[in-house]
Structures are given as C-alpha cells and as structure tokens.
C-alpha cells in the first residue's frame, strides 16, 4: 500500500488496498483511488475516493477527501457522541461530506506552483474531481454517505452480502457526479440501517465492480465477498501481510483482465456480539 493508504491509520480489523489500473500504468498515471479506515472508541469509519480520470490532480483530490473525512469523523463522534436518530445521523454524515469538500475548496484556493498552469479557482477545483464514499459504524447503526459511483456492501448476520449503497450513475457509462460538483450535497445519497448482527462492510471503487458485482442483478457477487471477508478475518496472518496479498491480488492478471481501471477496497470486519463481550480491547490502534 502506498500514498494515502499508508498515511491513514489502519485498525486491526480494517484492511485497505488500492492499485493503479493497467490503462493508467500505460499512460504513466498514478493510482487515483484513495482509501482509509479508522477504528476509534468502538466505532469504525471507512473512506474511499476515486479520482476522476479526466481531472489533472485527481489523486490529490481523492487523497484529501479521504484524509479530511476521517479527520472529521475523529472529531465529530467523540465530541457529539453517537447520533441519536436518523436526522442526527444525516446531519453527522453531511458534516463529514462538507469537511471533505472544504478540504478540496481550500486546496483549490491555493495556486499550485508545481503545476505550471494558472487556472481559475473553479477550474482548479474541477481538477481535483473525485467520487466520495464514507461509512460509519457504531454499536447499533451503520450510516453511509456517497457521491458518484462505487459500491458499499454489508455482510448480513446470515453471511449473505447486500448493497449498502449503489453507484449513482448518470445514464451514460463514463459519466458520474463528483464531490467537486456544484450540487454535491444534492448528489450525496445517505443510507442508514441497524447493524442487525452484520459481520462486516466493504467499500469498493467502480474499477472492481466487474469482479465483485453481479452487474445484471446489481448485487454483490456472493462467493467473491465471502472469500474477501474470510481472508480479512484470518487471524493467522498479520494486517500488513494481508494488505500486501490483497494488493498483489488487485495487480494480478485475472483481475487486470477484467478491468483496466484503478481499483481499491476498504474492508472492515466487525466482531460478532458474543465475541465482543469476551474480547473487549483497549483502543490502541
């Protein structure tokens, strides 16, 4: 893992990976997806952003969005406690979204001397275009806020996987909405649900949907997610080793044959309730 993935704190029960797509490697572009996860005081926060291929500084935009979202979560939850109801959840998630957007606006306000191109602020903001996926899990509820494409998937108590948040596609294949759009708040979709014994959650960029999603049914590909979560749960392997192996999988020929886009994953495995009682841990991650 590199870049923002390495700079974001990764908790013991979270796993992130991102790899540049072959089409980006061929043109010398770096990976424009950014990933991060944070476990704090019994809550788990996941963030993923997929920088727009058409935007010049998309990797800066996606990294900023992920870092600022997790930073906002780190402040908002301890300060205000868990949201009491749906309306408080919505406001909280919008707070994270606005923090991510502000970080992009602040960056766009500064001219970038390394760029060598003098753009207007509005254009500099466009050059940071990225999608945005953020999920928060407390002891009771899961909330997700989502702008653009990519998927949020949750593992139900019975081990099946369902969609937490689906991509917001325009009618057309290569067009979507971004955090840098004028209507980013209207474009943001919020999903809220009870935890109901859910075993884990996964965020993924659209680059992996040919591998992980049954697109005809718009449903998670069950065996693929079952395998991923089993891999993430494997206690015999260290998180670092798992992250390496996950990255190698993303670079592998069988994945690259299905997609030439950047691909990224954030996986969180929740402790089962019976296990949680026996396995209360200090928050040292």
């Amino acid at each position, binding site marked *: 893992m590199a870049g923002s993935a390495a700079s974001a704190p990764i908790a013991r029960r979270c796993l992130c990976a991102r790899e540049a*797509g072959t*089409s980006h490697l061929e043109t010398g572009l770096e990976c424009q997806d950014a990933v991060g996860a944070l476990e704090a005081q019994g809550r788990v926060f996941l963030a993923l952003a*997929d*920088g*727009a*291929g*058409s935007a010049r500084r998309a990797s800066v935009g996606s990294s900023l969005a992920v870092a600022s979202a997790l930073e906002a979560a780190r402040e908002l939850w301890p300060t205000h406690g868990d949201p009491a109801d749906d309306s408080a959840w919505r406001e909280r998630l919008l707070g994270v979204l606005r923090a991510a957007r502000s970080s992009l606006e602040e960056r766009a306000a500064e001219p970038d001397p390394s760029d060598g191109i003098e753009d207007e602020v509005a254009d500099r903001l466009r050059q940071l*275009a990225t*999608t945005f996926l953020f999920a928060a899990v407390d002891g009771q509820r899961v909330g997700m806020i989502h702008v*653009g*494409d990519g998927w949020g998937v949750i593992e139900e108590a019975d081990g099946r996987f369902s969609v937490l948040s689906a*991509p917001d*596609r*325009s*009618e*057309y*294949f*290569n*067009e*979507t909405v*971004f955090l840098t759009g004028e209507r980013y708040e209207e474009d943001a979709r919020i999903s809220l649900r009870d935890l109901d014994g859910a075993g884990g959650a996964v965020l993924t960029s*659209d*680059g992996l949907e040919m591998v992980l999603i049954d*697109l*005809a049914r718009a449903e998670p590909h069950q065996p693929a997610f079952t395998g991923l979560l089993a891999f993430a749960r494997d206690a015999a392997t260290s998180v670092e080793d798992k992250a390496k192996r996950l990255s190698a999988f993303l670079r592998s020929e069988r994945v690259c044959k299905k997609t*030439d*886009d950047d691909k990224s994953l954030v996986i969180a495995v929740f402790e089962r309730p019976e296990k949680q009682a026996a396995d209360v841990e200090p928050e040292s991650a």
Partner: protein
Amino acid sequence: MHELDDLEFAVNTEPRCPCLLVLDTSSSMNGDPIRELNAGLAAFQDDINQDELARKRAEIALVTFGGTVEVAQDFVTVEGFQAPTLVANGNTPMGEAVHRGLDLLRARKDEYKANRINYYRPWMFLITDGVPTDEWKQAAADAAHAEANRELILYAIGVRSADFRVLAEFSPEREPLQLKGLSFREFFQWLSQSQKRVSSSNPGDEVQLPAPTGWGTAPTST
C-alpha cells in the same frame, strides 16, 4: 433473424459507444464529394477495426438524405460494419433525416436498456453541403432540445457551400465546423481516433475529443 439479432447483446456485453452519421447524399454531392465520402467510410471501417476494444464497443449507424431518407446502416458494432457505397441523388430532406436519426438513437438506447448494456452518450454527426429542401426548423429545434437534455452530442459539419446558419440551429451548443475541402478521409480518421479514445474510457473519464486538426475549421461563410 430477429431472435438471433437479439443475441448480440448476450454475446457481446461490452458497453457501447453509439455514433450516428446523418449524411447528405443529395445530387449536389455527386462526383468528387460522394466519392470522397465513400472512401472516408471505407477507411473508417479499416482503421477502427484495428482497435480491439473499439471493435466491440463502438457502434455506427448511417442515415442518408438524398431524394428520400434511408437508414443505410442500422446500429451495428464496428466489427460487423461493412462500409456501403452511397449514391448521390435528389433533393435534401435534412429535417426528416434528423428526425429519423433521433428515432433511431432512442430506439437503440431502449435496446441497450432492455438488455442491460451500459452505454456512452451517443454522438450524432450531421454532414451536408447544401440547404434543406424540407421543413427543417422543427427538426433543428428537436435536435437542439435533445442535446440540451443530454440525450446526445451533436456535431454539425458543413461541406463547401453549406448553409452554416441552418446548421447552427441544429447545434446551438457547438459551432458548426466546415470541412476543409473534401477531406472526408481525415474526418473519418479523426472519428476513428475519437471513438477509440472514448471506448477505452472508464467511468468518470469525461473524454476530451482531439482537436479537428486536418479536416475542420470554423466556417468562413455565414
């Protein structure tokens, strides 16, 4: 045949990049213009088929207007496209041709949706060397409205003495371009390059088309 035609989406599930050419084949295109247009179409068939992804993703359809309006080629992926030899004849029913083109595009989108095929925003190229001889204002308004609704991207291209004021009404969002001389081959090469670029793009990659260098200029006549 119809049932077998439906299988094309089962055999090829790639996202589609549809491109519709609405071509003037009226009698004023006779001689060199139609010859160059036909040569351009043949070169396009060869060039775009060199690209593995574009072969399966780019689709082309041709509507001609010369005396009557004909669907010279309904939508087909370029791997199955055989460039026709068009013949110039008759007057210029441009309005009817654009209406037919819009209908064809909408029908194709319905097929994509019914077969759960992803698709890119369609392109329509309106190419003429003349002045419409039918009622064209409603067609121009409908095309402009369709573009404003993000249904398609319309490029109007005038050849020689085309009426650019008329063409501008079809594409108010984009100034019509004038074909340099009869450089149809250069135009089709550009189209092939553009379709290759779009058909290899991923979600979020809003594609900037190459500049029309080599074939197009801003119109010199008004």
